[in-house]
């Protein structure tokens, strides 16, 4: 049974802490974790994994906790949930042996990046005529690497990545003991998407923001996360529009600087410069805070760096596409993009997919005002917990 994969030290600690929190409940207004918690009297590993993926590690509940260290209860929800979240990533990964990539994610990401770069650089050195590689092509990168070659390489990789993410999501859904997905209504899914896109729970439940990077409330992390997320989506949109132009209208790249794909890509690229830099700066400021478990540091930093490099090389390629640097920059950019693709199911990127599922579950539980997750049997037992009188 998949859930047994979550019988980890982090799950045991999360159970200890949630039992304390459930008797206190002062943090109910901060995020989704606590309203989900109050629907339960006990916590199975699957339920804890579900709660962990509702947590943003925002720090509000830690800084407001009367039981935080040096209190003997030593309650630290964000840190514990961050560690357990990593366990859920590892347990849900497909193929399963690649789950280990989450343990030393910095090294794993570095290896992927180096391998991808070597593959592209080596391939270019062997397969592409140096005169073509180092020549000026008036921005036409298909002169260096044909459209079909790019589609072949990235199509295969994208299909694998897509499969890994979708199967990972299915495994995650079972891991957290969720009911069949068909029980989720359109409204549950709409609420979850809304809450994910607005990063609703990253505000700590306050108009002032969450306690990140330090105790004083701030919206900065939410802001930089939005730069990063929407930057990524705009780049994705740019590629999609380009594909539509190519196959739908027969308009072949390169496109002008004021064309739709270029505008989308440039704006997205800027988002992926501003966002990751902002998040890394905040992360450094937060490093001294006890909410930062050691667990997620490599994961976050590795993925932010890959996003940043993807954007940097892409913007450089756009800016210098009319010069003889075209070929070299194209090869480096494609190498970084390949690394980013391969890191998606085995790096920080996966958090978005699992969190969205957890939010769907949360919307389902809110609608029915009952605990639906984490246990196959006896769903009625805890349903009264939230109605209990003081």
């Amino acid at each position: 049974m998949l859930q047994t994969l979550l019988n980890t030290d982090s799950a045991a600690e999360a159970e200890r802490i949630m039992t304390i929190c459930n008797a206190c409940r002062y943090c109910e207004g901060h995020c989704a974790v606590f309203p989900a918690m109050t629907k339960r009297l006990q916590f199975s590993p699957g339920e804890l994994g579900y709660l962990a993926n509702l947590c943003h590690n925002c720090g509000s509940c830690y800084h407001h906790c009367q039981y935080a260290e040096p209190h003997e209860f030593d309650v630290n929800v964000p840190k514990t949930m961050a560690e357990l979240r990593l366990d859920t990533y590892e347990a849900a990964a497909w193929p399963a042996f690649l789950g280990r990539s989450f343990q030393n994610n910095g090294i794993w990401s570095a290896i992927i990046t180096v391998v991808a770069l070597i593959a592209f650089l080596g391939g270019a050195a062997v397969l592409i005529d140096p005169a073509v590689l180092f020549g000026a092509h008036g921005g036409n990168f298909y002169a260096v690497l044909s459209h079909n070659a790019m589609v072949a390489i990235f199509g295969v990789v994208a299909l694998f990545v897509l499969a890994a993410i979708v199967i990972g999501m299915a495994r995650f859904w079972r891991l957290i003991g969720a009911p069949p997905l068909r029980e989720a209504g359109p409204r549950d899914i709409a609420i979850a998407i809304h809450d994910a896109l607005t990063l609703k729970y990253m505000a700590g439940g306050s108009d002032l923001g969450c306690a990140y990077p330090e105790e004083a409330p701030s919206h900065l992390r939410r802001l930089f996360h939005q730069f990063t997320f929407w930057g990524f989506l705009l780049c994705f949109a740019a590629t999609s529009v380009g594909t539509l132009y190519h196959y739908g209208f027969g308009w072949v790249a390169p496109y002008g600087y004021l064309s739709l794909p270029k505008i989308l890509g440039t704006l997205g690229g800027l988002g992926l410069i501003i966002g990751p830099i902002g998040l890394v700066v905040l992360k450094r400021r937060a490093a001294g805070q006890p909410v930062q478990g050691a667990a997620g540091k490599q994961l976050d930093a590795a993925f932010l760096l890959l996003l940043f490099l993807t954007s940097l090389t892409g913007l450089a390629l756009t800016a210098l596409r009319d010069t003889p640097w075209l070929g070299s920059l194209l090869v480096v950019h494609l190498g970084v993009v390949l690394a980013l693709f391969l890191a998606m199911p085995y790096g920080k990127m996966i958090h978005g997919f699992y969190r969205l599922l957890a939010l769907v579950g949360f919307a389902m539980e809110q609608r029915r005002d009952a605990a639906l997750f984490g246990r196959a049997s006896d769903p009625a037992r805890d349903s009264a917990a939230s109605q209990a009188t003081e």
Partner: protein
Amino acid sequence: MAPRGETAKSGFQEGVGETSFDVLVIGGGNAGLSAAIVAAEAGRSVCLLEGAPRAYRGGNSRHTRNLRAMHDAPTSVLTEAYGEAEYYEDLLRVTKGKTTEPLARLAIRESQESVAWLEAHGVRFQKALSGTLHLGRTNAFFLGGGKALVNALYRAAEALGVTVHYEAWVEEVRLDENLCRGVAARIGGTAVEFAARTAVFAAGGFQANIPWLKESWGAAADNFLIRGTPYNTGEVLKQLLDQGVAQVGDPQQCHAVAIDGRAPKFDGGICTRVDCVSLGIVVNAQGARFYDEGEDFWPKRYAIWGRLVAAQPQQVGHVLIDQKAIGLFMPPVFPAEQAETIEELAMKIGVDPRALAKTVADYNAAVRDGSFDHTELDDCHTEGLTPPKTHWARRLDRPPFYAYTLKPGITFTYLGVEVDETARVLMADGRPSANMFAAGEIMAGNVLGEGYLAGIGMTIGGVFGRIAGREAARRASNAA
């Protein structure tokens, strides 16, 4: 920094900094912080001495979750209306009339401003927590609880230039008749003499001082657990009372609830509560019942059970429920003892099995069936049993049976210093002090002679804190 144009004469000590202030605030909980902020906003130089280290700052405020606020119309966080008359009647009922009407009405009226004032200083509110919906009309809940409030107020105070010292222990209050010259304190290991034009005392009650509790409770006090901060030892209160300040309140009166006996000696806070008393029966160490568990809704009765348990042998009570009660009350932090039979459960909690079995059998036989409804005063009760259980009485007949062992948990004591409507401290001879003010638990006994009304502690602290800050600033500027 606050404007310092006409500040107190300067004093300075190496390693400590400035030692002379317009307003010296002793105690860094809700009351002291409110006073410090208001005085600093009035342009005074303010120093706040907090006895606890930074991690434990805020006194009992860090364990609170709401304040009771009067309002004539629904607000962003409070439903319907809660007027002065109803609020005052509630207070009269719980205190059995032991209150000072002008001060009580002042606290009630000024509580209308509390939510807005706190919001303006960075505190945020949330809707009533699950399990406390009955308080949604009368009580405003702090987002994140009392420690979030404390953090926000410290940030506001620091932004206004208030000097804050942690681990600053006041050893002597320098009184000259009815005039406070300053205090002798110890910060870490360093002795510091602070001088001040005015002083605000907000250092809490004496509930963490077991020897003092024993003066009125006897040896029983050894078995008390202290729900809040261990730093409220009452030394400042004692200094004032010993030097001619008027005393108010009965030393035995306090806010005390029955909490899980396994709670830490100090600082166990809210999560050590056991909320199933009205769903079961409570017996003492001899296995005998001693009070009507179903007298009224638990939120209206939880504050009497501390005293009830304190009066039992070894200051222990055991609450017994069966499977039917599971899921109907807030989950306790510690697991219950559990057994398939009453006798087995009795062995686990150290009560004579035959005595407990007889108590349960007598109770079960006396139960008259009704339609059980925990949300209203239902008709499930006992007949011919002493003491009776007047509501929610259901037989203990469905195993497994569960038991939680209870001990008295003291929240705060009511003995304090007497104040007037400007929060000014009164002397035992009836004169007002020239420059001393008090706020919070150290003077809550002026309003709370006995009993408790949920959330009124933070109301008293905030209202009298703001008044004390305003009056201390005014007095300091007159003295300049």
